[in-house]
Each structure stands twice: as C-alpha cells, then as structure tokens.
C-alpha cells in the first residue's frame, strides 16, 4: 500500500511542478534557474514530509519557492532593490529602440506590466495567475488576510488592465522596457 507521505510527495509533484516553475521563472527569469529552484523546493519537501501541513501545502511550497528564488538571485547578484513607493510613482517614458522589440507578444507585454506593479500586488497576481492559488492559499503564503488578498488582486488587475488598454491605444509604447526586474 502506498503511504500517505509518498502520495503527498508525488501528488505535489504532479500538481505543482508546472505552477511552481511558472512562478519561479517569473522570479528568476531563466528557465534553467527556475527548474533548479523548483527542484530544491521538492528536495526540501521530501525532507519535511513528516511535519508539513498538507492542508497548507500549496502556500508552503510557494513560500519555499520564493525564498529559494530570492537566495538564487542574491547569490547571482541579480537583486535590484527598489522601494514600492518608487515604483508606484515612476514611469518608463523612454521607448527601447530596436525594431525587434516593436511587436512583442502579448505574454511578454503582460509580464512586463506585471513587473511595474507594487510588490504586494505583483506577488498576489503571480500567486493567482502563475501559480493558480486560491485567495485563501495566497493569504496563507503572503501572511495577510483573505480580504487584503482580494484588495491587492483587484487593484493589481485594475492597474494591469488600465495599462493594457492604454497600450492598445498606443502600440508603440508596448516596447517600453520594464522598470526593474524585481521579485
């Protein structure tokens, strides 16, 4: 008979492998790095099977993933620290030259817009759309109330949508660079 621990580990691997890689990829930027981060997450899970709370497995996995990605970025000197307040006010007003960037794919544009959100909104959006977590799971992972998660996601989506609509009306601006590759 397959044990609960075995089941938990393999179910977690089946269920969360791709969402974790999507999430990690958005944090570290490189697919191979994201894979390494996610591998570390599951190694850690294998060591904590006796203690991890299966009811809160998803928040646990994504919290570990965030920590590992942060460590990875620090280790590779790719951390750019910028206060959220700065991000809220700052705007990119210089278009990146180069014809190759003029027709970015929708996905790339959305991801670039995502980097411009305040940190908490960005994290809530990541956990919702990249990781596929519920409000409750996001609440556990971000250590904030479900109500605040709803607030962050609503305002994050509003901001993204407004930016998206404005880009739709001004396609040239789609080639604007991201403000910073934050995590």
């Amino acid at each position, binding site marked *: 008979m397959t044990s609960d621990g*075995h089941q938990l580990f393999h179910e977690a691997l089946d269920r969360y492998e791709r969402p974790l890689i999507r999430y990690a990829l958005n944090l570290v930027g490189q697919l191979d790095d994201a894979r390494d981060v996610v591998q570390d997450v599951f190694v850690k899970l294998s060591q904590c099977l*006796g203690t991890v*709370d299966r009811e809160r497995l998803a928040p646990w996995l994504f919290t570990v993933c965030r920590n590992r990605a942060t460590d990875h970025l620090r280790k590779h000197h790719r951390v750019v620290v910028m206060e959220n307040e700065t991000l809220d006010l700052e705007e990119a007003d210089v278009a990146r030259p180069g014809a190759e960037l003029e027709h970015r794919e929708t996905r790339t544009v959305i991801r670039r817009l*995502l980097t411009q959100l305040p940190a908490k909104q960005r994290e809530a959006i990541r956990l919702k759309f990249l990781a596929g977590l519920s409000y409750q799971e996001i609440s556990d992972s971000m250590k904030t109330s479900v109500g605040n998660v709803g607030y962050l996601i609503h305002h994050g989506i509003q901001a*993204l949508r407004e930016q998206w609509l404005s880009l739709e009306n001004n396609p040239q601006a789609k080639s604007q660079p991201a403000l910073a590759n934050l995590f």
Partner: protein
Amino acid sequence: MKPEQLTAWALNELTAEERAQVEAALAASPQAQESALEVKAFCDLLNEELGQDECSLRADQSEHLRALVPAQSVPALSTIGSARMRSLRGVGAATGSDWKQGWWVRVAAMAACALMVGVVIYRATPTKEVEVAEASEPMSPTLDAEDVRVSAGMTLPKATPSPSKTLEPKRESPALTQNVVPEAKSLPVPDPVERADGTMIAAVPSPSAVKTSVQIAPGNTVLPETGFIETSRLPVAVVNMAVNPISLSEVQRVLASSQLKGLRVRAADLINSFAYSYEPPHADEAQPIHVSATTVTAPWESTHQLIRVAMQARLGADEVVARDVRLEVVFDPTQVRAYRMLGVEPLATAGAESEPQGVEMKAGQSFTALFEVVPAREALPKDQVLADGAASSQPQMRALPRTPSTVGSEKNASNEASLMRVRMQFQKPDSAFAEVVELLGTPKVGTLETADADFQFATALAGMGWLMAAPEGRGPLSWSQVKQWVARGEGGRAERADLLKALEAIPSPKQP
C-alpha cells in the same frame, strides 16, 4: 457591491451565497454587467497568458525527485517520526505494518534481555519511558499503541519491578512527556546538502533527532542536549540566533521549587537572556558587530574543547545596528572530529518558516554560542553521535548568500592550525546588500578557570540547562561547579548576583 467583489466573482473566488448576491446585482444593472464581463475577459486573458506555460522539470531532475521518495518507502505522515526512531534503533527496513506485527515479539525479546543482563535501572519516581518523534511536544493523553515505543536500555519504574509488566505501554499516565534513547545507527536518507562552495551544510539538530537519555519528571518539558555531529560529514553548523528570553525571576522560581516545573530548559535561551560585555567593534572597524571566538578545555571532558563564539554590537543610541544577522561555523575536518552546540535552540520543523531567520541586533546587544568539540586525534564519544541520517535529515538550512558587497575579512589568523571558521552575515540598516565577515578561529586553548568572566558565566548557564534536564549531573559537572562559575562570572552585575543568591540559597537544588 464592492469593486473587489466583482474581481472575486470574475475569478470564481466567491462563496455560492456571495456569488448569488453579486449576480443578482449584476442582473439589475446592465452597466455593472458590462463592467463585470470586461473584468472577466481580462482575467481570462491573464489566465491564458500567464498560466499556460507548459514548462516542466528536466527529465533527470524529475527522475531524481521521484527517486527521493520512492514508492512504499515513506510512512504515513502521522508516523514518519516514529519510523525514523525505529530506524535509528537499527530495527531495519521493516514497513509500518511489519513493525506492528513484530512489536510484541520485540517487546518480549527486550524484556528477556533486560532480565538476563540485569541492566534494569530502578528509579524513585514512577515514570514510563516513551519515545516520541517530536521531543518538544508533550505526549498526547490518548496515545495509540503504535505511538508508544519501548526501548532497550530502558529505565523502569521502581514501583513496577517486573520488567515484563513495565514493558507494556501504559495508557494511564498521560502526564509523561518524553524520553529519547542514545542508540543511533545509520538512517538511509539523502546526503547532506552540498553548497556551491563545496562545503556540506548541516542544521544544528532539533530535539526530534537528538538522542540522549533524560529522565523527566511528569509535567515538565525538558529539551535534551544535542548529540555530536561528525565534521567529516557535516562541517557547517548554522546557528539559530532567535532567542526566547527567560526572565531571571523565572529561573529563580524554578531553582526555588522542588520540581522543575514551568520552565522550558534551553541553555541557549538561558545564556542569551543575560547581558555580556564582549569586545566591541574597534574604532577603525567598519562592521557594526564584532565577532570573536575563544577556545578552552571542556571542563567536563578534558579531551574535548569548548568554544565560545561571541558577537557584540557596537555601542551608541538605542538603534538597530544590523539586521538579518546570521551566524554559521565551519569546522575543519582535519582538526575536529565532531562537534555539538550546547543548549541549542531547537528548530521548528514545519517547513519554510522553520529555517533560521536572520535577527536584528541593536546597539550594545551581544550573542553567545557555545560548541563542544572533539579534536581529530580523539575518539568519538560512544552513544553520543548523531547518526548521519539523523543529522542530514534536519530541515535544510538556507546557505548564507553572497552579495556584490560581500566583505571577506579574516581576522586573528595565526600560523597554528585552526579548528573552525566563523561566518557572520548581516545587513546594515541603510544597506540593500548583505555583508559577510569571516573569522578564522584561533586554537588558543586554556582552561575555563583562566577564561574571562563572561565565558565562565555562559558555561555555568549551559551547565544549569544540563542539570535541570538531568539532575544527577553530567560527568564531573555538578551544581557546586555551576555555582563556582557563576560566582567567578558574577562581575558585580546585579542579575548575575541575584542568580548566584538563588543558587546559594539552595545548596543542592536538584539532587535526586
């Protein structure tokens, strides 16, 4: 209707009742309905664009992970710790059901052995020896039979002289807390974590993996000391600097009581609940914290060495001088056979939040960590070495990250062989980057009697932790010895003087 509700509706995050309310409101307002559909369309776009990447692990990674937890090898969550204990006792690779089937056979065998070799020890206090996976947690009053373990070398209650009777799990003693057994054999678990710089990293072990024999009075929670970790396998010890302060009045109350009730005995907490005056950063030192290491002969074992790692924040206003402060000690396997941290702060075991987090240090604050070290030329202490698996199965610690502004300074370097290297990481409050200071420990060995007062006082507190856990003493360590060290380390400090008074008022407070 709040705008957030509209988004929650679009993301299907509402309860059935909330959803019905929102949809009723939408039905009544074509304008709201149009807005809702626009939001939903954008959410669908986000889902499609952000959530549909089919990136996965490489085949070799996936294979490696699935091999980590092969089928049939992991017990149920509720018994994983018990299984670990079983393996540590060398029972073998029996499955959980095998174990249940053979339990009574083993009990009978152990009882017979106990009778034949006469190793039964009688105790004055009627207690029961129970192994639990999580030593820091009190046993549940409603133990299941498979949660109760009886160990070889067990301690039997005087009130029940028949070993065969004693070996039966007794459910009528819910106040018992824990016992752990010093039998540590290998546990088949993955290798310890190798870091980028090639070193292997170990967590300072939590009580669940610590095997030592402690007799505990009912109602107390006593944390056992840690076993030694072999340096050749795990040379890096990450120190959990989070301190749970214990007030002097609490210590006094416990010393004055006839039972060790009401105090979680953690020597690391005891030690760091008192103030010390270590050497502060020099005037020309850019770092806000000075770290130093001192080595003496361990007073309870002349072949071992006792190392104090001391950290002292610079003086000044009541301000945070460093944040995210972390400490780790890297032992040299050619010089050190094994080590353990005294009175270790046990790690929580539940995942991401269990990793030692960096702490803040304010001006004037200090931190003390004591390590007992077995030199390479000495033999390993019998029955006190953590199994490889027990050590490496601890929660993986986050390695100290290096940053562009990493400071790599070596101090106190000498021509003599060094036992270890101390790494301290911190961030200055106004800095975005972490800095690392490395200290090459000097192998200067003296005796505790000739060491500074702070070292003697900290050792006395470690000794108090031991004696509270095991009142019969630990080798030559005794309450009178602890009193001596407290007296020498008192140094005119009011708190220390009060502690000394409390100790002197009770000549042998915890003698059996």
